[in-house]
């Protein structure tokens, strides 16, 4: 199982490195969105709740863009059929895709968070950085799981570009709630202590539950 996942993961990352389909687009989208937010909100610097909200909404939409493309190559070019023929555990594909999505999100955040800090963020990011990374990591897992599940669901439908975001956004609301609430005190001028544990627990619980569900259900999406 681990070897299968490793092989699939290598393939995904190789394809991405050669074609640059997803990650540059996602990152560029995020930076552009920050600019749009500046004009839409007419603010030069944001902090606290507002900053957390802008960051998470941008990350969310960029992630959805990436999730949409996750299965397109497989569906259009017979990747599913090829995989089904191989004598391997089918859930390996799910794990590999989640890890791929996670990798995309990490790269996205490596670009987007500094960009955010430079462009829009008022308070300095330094002291809160470790906690921010923890919150982002938890949120990323959830986004990756849901993105993979919804991507697989939507890719076989007719209106896949529309249906993907439509399905993913409500499902990701708890991540937004947990992530934004957890991040808000980190991005405030007055660092009022750390992240309330409540939100980390929410994110963790969400990741666990939907990770298990996606793992159990993914098989059913692959059959022909």
């Amino acid at each position: 199982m681990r070897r299968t996942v490793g092989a699939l993961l290598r393939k995904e990352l190789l394809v991405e490195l050669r074609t640059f389909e997803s990650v540059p687009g996602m990152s560029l989208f995020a930076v552009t969105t920050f600019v749009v937010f500046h004009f839409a909100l007419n603010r030069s610097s944001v902090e606290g709740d507002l900053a957390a909200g802008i960051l998470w909404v941008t990350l969310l939409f960029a992630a959805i863009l990436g999730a949409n493309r996750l299965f397109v190559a497989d569906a259009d070019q017979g990747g599913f059929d090829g995989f089904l023929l191989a004598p391997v555990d089918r859930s390996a594909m799910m794990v590999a895709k989640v890890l791929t999505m996670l990798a995309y999100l990490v790269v996205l955040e490596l670009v987007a968070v500094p960009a955010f800090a430079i462009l829009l963020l008022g308070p300095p990011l330094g002291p809160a950085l470790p906690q921010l990374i923890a919150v982002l990591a938890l949120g990323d897992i959830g986004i990756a799981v849901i993105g993979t599940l919804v991507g697989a669901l939507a890719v076989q439908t007719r209106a896949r570009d529309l249906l993907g975001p439509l399905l993913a956004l409500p499902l990701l609301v708890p991540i937004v709630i947990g992530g934004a609430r957890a991040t808000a005190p980190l991005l405030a001028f007055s660092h009022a202590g750390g992240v309330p544990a409540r939100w980390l627990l929410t994110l963790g619980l969400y990741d666990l539950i939907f990770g298990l569900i996606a793992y159990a259900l993914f098989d059913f999406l692959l059959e022909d």
Partner: protein
Amino acid sequence: MYGKGLRSLSIVTVAAMALALSLVFFYAPLEAEQGFLQKIFYIHVPLAIIALCGFVVGALFAIAHLRTRDSSWDMRSYVTIHMSLIFAVGALITGSIWAKGSWGHWWVWNEPTLVSFLIVFLLYATYQPLRFAIEDPERQSRYASVFAITAGAFVPMNFIAVRLSTAYLHPRVLGGTSNLPGSMRLTFMVSLAAVTLLFVTMCKYELTAKHTRAQVRALRRRLVGEDGSPARRGRTAVPAVGTQAAGRSGL
């Protein structure tokens, strides 16, 4: 036979509904804070609870479908989710009316039940478009079941998350169901039972109607031959239903 027992069920539903409404308007006392407006509570909250349970039951039916590959489970899942969506709309509208009466706004963000309802509604509103976008019936049922299970797990998760996010900010606007005096609790329980029966009756009704339609179509095919019946419906979101006595126990 989906329709078995439908008659007695509907009679019981009517009786329960009549009893519930009488209790609401003639027996339950006026509440101290909100006065007469509080009576909406007896219709809004049961609608909400039943809709949520309906979504979860739809997920359970979907699990049965994926395990047994029997399409009658998919039909039950589809009907239950459909009906729950309608009840959810009812809950949203009555909740909005209540908010308008209490606060003067048609929508309040600090009432967690209402907010998580909106999110759940938005999620399940995609169920039908998802089905409609998949042409192959077997795949449609399968994907719909995966969605139903995911969404069913989402409902309690979402509830928790929204509750947490509003809990420490504002007091609950519309009040909860704890600390109810006895007479109010009785009225609430009866209303809950009545709405549950209404839900089950309507679902059974819907299943029977769909099954009947399928039987008529099968009969037409038998009598007239294959070319007599209209071409297989093109694209549709409705699951196909078998014509054998699929519903052994009715619902």
